[in-house]
């Protein structure tokens, strides 16, 4: 269940992953670090966000594993998006 008060993972990407000077800059909602991302990485995070909102993040993790696994650093960012939903739905659980 997505929290009714805060931004959803999709909202977060919309607001805090702007394209600045040709690169996407993602604000990690967990650590508050910023990360430069390629367009492909943003695409993966959008897929992750959609799966979190639809309560199928576990299945998404399986899909990523089948597709060859996570590139360095991206899984942590995808899992950080799960902190935007309430405690009943945790990453990978």
């Amino acid at each position, binding site marked *: 269940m997505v929290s009714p008060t805060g931004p959803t993972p999709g909202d977060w990407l919309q607001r*805090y992953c702007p394209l600045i000077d040709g690169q996407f800059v993602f604000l990690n909602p967990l650590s508050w670090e*910023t990360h430069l*991302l*390629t367009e*492909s990485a943003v695409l993966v995070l959008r897929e992750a966000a959609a799966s979190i909102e639809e309560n199928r993040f576990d299945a998404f993790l399986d899909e990523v594993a089948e597709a*060859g*696994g996570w590139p360095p650093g*991206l899984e942590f*960012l995808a899992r950080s998006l799960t902190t935007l939903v309430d405690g009943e739905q945790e990453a990978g659980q």
Partner: protein
Amino acid sequence: MRDAQQSNSVEQRRKLLKGALAASGVVTMGYSGSALASINCVEQVRTEGGFPGTDFQFRETDEPDPFVGEDDWAWVKVEILKFTVTLNGTPTEFAGFQPVIDPAAVATPVYTVPTAASPIMLVTDASLSLIGPYDPPRHGWVLAYFDDTGAITGVFPTTTTFEEGFTPATDRCLASINPGLDRTNMLFGG
């Protein structure tokens, strides 16, 4: 047939995901998150609003600060002065103000102080002349407008439409994106 189509779609999605994963790149920059978050805080005002409407973007008040409240929009102080215009041959005195970003600026337009009977009006009559300040002095506040970096770009009523480059902003937002903003003539409140 339907199963075959679904299977095809799933396979296409897998290929897309595989390609995206392979081309993904992440570079960690560090803790500049507050600045990034704030880039959007001025933009957000344009989508979410919440600032006073144009009927409330000028307020005449004396000290102390009357704007401290739930909201913390940025306002610029204006001095209310005595002006006169000649209407039908008769000099008519009125209270007016000149909305300026820089208090040292000259040759700025003169607006009337609104009353219950009369809204703010731009005075352009050739007979317009300044008499001087009131005693005791009168002051008002006009809502300030900013660009998305937090630089002030205008004040009410010279600026009334909000768009990119001209957006009201809050103290908290400005503190994040433009901590060096000159706040000498500003005040924050609802």
